[in-house]
């Protein structure tokens, strides 16, 4: 990261995504689908990493924010899809993603301000609670299909959009954390009391991390909605939040590269295990236990394990 200006890496990633997307016809549709899943997982894991890893605030409600963004973006494109031309379609889709992210960020603010007064396990359980409340609210909203789910979402998410969003998320979070301002997040993580004594407004940093994390989770939700073309409230339950948390922890809490790799591995793993479908989730859970027993510092950390106690 030191040798290349990170902006160039971002541009390179966007160009490569665009090229692959342009020739996506030659690839197997199944592999393309999985690669989009991977990109969405990266957005989710990296955004949660900002909250759980860098800032050290254990949140268990990420799926709730994903749901807010997904439903908002989907409602927008469903309402507008009749009047779209091939030219306006990508613009509207991008707008829908951003609006989804913003509404989700607003939800993050509403949730974050009261709950970030709490710490540790209490914070975890309150964010879990908010995630469940969001899910129950969608389950009761007739306008978005209530419990039977939202159908008929246009299939706008392609290779370019998903990987472009992943690249932007990684770029934004990495630059934010490595900036002067971003040192505050790490200070809050390392020692909240000391950070406060140094004049850092810890509450403000925590809420900022929460809102930014929620924004990207909302974007991921929008991508997810237009990839699966169907949204069901049960898809955003506690298990989904846990899935993202596991990615962050196996990636090594606060190590962006590790978290990206964990997101890739944990998304591909269930697909690889598909031939032994009835055992795959059993193997997945055993792997989590085994890794926690053998490599608690994360899957992809070799030399930095002593950096943070």
């Amino acid at each position, binding site marked *: 990261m030191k040798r290349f200006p990170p902006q160039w890496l971002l541009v390179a990633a966007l160009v490569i995504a665009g090229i692959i997307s342009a020739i996506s016809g030659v690839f197997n549709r199944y592999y393309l689908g999985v690669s989009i899943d991977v990109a969405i997982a990266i957005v989710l894991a990296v955004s949660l990493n900002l909250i759980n890893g860098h800032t050290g605030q254990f949140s268990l409600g990420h799926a709730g924010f994903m749901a807010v963004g997904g439903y908002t973006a989907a409602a927008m494109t469903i309402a507008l899809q009749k009047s779209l031309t091939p030219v306006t379609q990508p613009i509207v889709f991008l707008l829908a993603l951003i609006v989804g992210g913003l509404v989700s960020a607003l939800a993050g603010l509403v949730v974050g301000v009261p709950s970030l007064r709490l710490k540790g396990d209490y914070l975890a359980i*309150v964010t879990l609670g*908010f995630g469940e409340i969001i899910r129950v609210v969608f389950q009761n909203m007739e306008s978005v299909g209530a419990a039977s789910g939202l159908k008929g979402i246009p299939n706008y998410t392609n290779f370019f959009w998903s990987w472009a969003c992943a690249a932007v998320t990684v770029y934004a979070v990495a630059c934010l954390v490595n900036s002067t301002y971003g040192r505050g997040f790490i200070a809050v993580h390392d020692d909240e009391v000391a950070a406060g004594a140094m004049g850092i407004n810890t509450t403000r940093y925590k809420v900022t991390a929460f809102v930014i994390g929620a924004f990207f989770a909302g974007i991921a939700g929008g991508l997810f909605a237009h990839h699966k073309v169907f949204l069901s409230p049960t898809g955003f339950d506690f298990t989904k939040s846990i899935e993202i948390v596991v990615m962050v922890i196996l990636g090594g*809490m606060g190590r962006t590269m590790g978290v990206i790799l964990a997101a890739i591995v944990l998304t591909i793993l269930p697909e690889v295990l598909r031939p032994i479908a009835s055992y795959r989730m059993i193997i997945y*859970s055993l792997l989590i236990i085994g890794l926690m027993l053998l490599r608690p510092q994360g899957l992809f950390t070799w030399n930095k394990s002593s950096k943070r106690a």
Partner: protein
Amino acid sequence: MTEFLQQILNGLALGAIYALIALGYTMVYGVLRFINFAHSDIFMLGAFSGFYLEKLFARYFASAFPPQSITAAIIIMLLSMAICAALGVAIEYLAYRPLRKRPRLTVLITAIGVSLFIEYTCQHPAVFGPSPQAFPKLLPEQTLNLGGVVMSSNQVVIFVVTGILLVLLTFIVQRTKVGMAMRAVSFNERAAALMGVNVDRIVSFTFALGSALAAAGGILFAIKYQKIEPLMGVQMGLKAFVAAVLGGIGNLPGACLGGLVLGLVESAVGGVARLSTYRDGVAFAFLIAVLLFRPDGLLGKATKEKV
């Protein structure tokens, strides 16, 4: 008025089951300071143990213990509690004990892994299978009419069993040596170890106790709803944990109070026609409201952070 009393009665019955599960969460949190996510699956395994034991009894011991007799029901419940106590101890020994000195987050994720492992293993067709199964009637059913308020015999069973177990638990924790050791470990693990308390044994005992209570809760739940499935513990476990936090985690009377309050609140919301579909969310909304004003729960003591 009768409807109001009826809702209170239903709420207390639900709350009693929450309380039984919440006690396990709160006890484990008391000694090890982490959320034992696998506890909700012990609850489920308790119900399934009851299910298979009933089949076993009906097939081989029908002459000695006729189906739906009180002795059979009691023996089934005690055996399920013993099975789950053993399972709880085994989980702690295999998955949590090697991590005792590691950060709590590691243990938390392991607990989630154990929970997922039990859930997916039990959903496998060769184990229990994913579809719900009808739970047999362990006892004959009757309904009592108390001046307009209808009370089923199942509710009586829930209240009686919960009452007995709570008295027993209070006795164990407050009046026995092992209970004193449990309180000591929960208060300060290091100091307790220095005073000659075998911490490992106390932790195992705590898991056994909590798991047995969860198994009892599982069977009572199964008697009430007459349907069991491998994922039945997920929602119940989450809400019971909410109950434990509500009462002040680590606090035994708090867990009971939290369970009963949660049962009453849910039942009250379920009784209002327009709100009934929001029932699952209300528990969490109530928890958040309480935590914002009393961050240590209803009966929890405020802890000051030392710098």
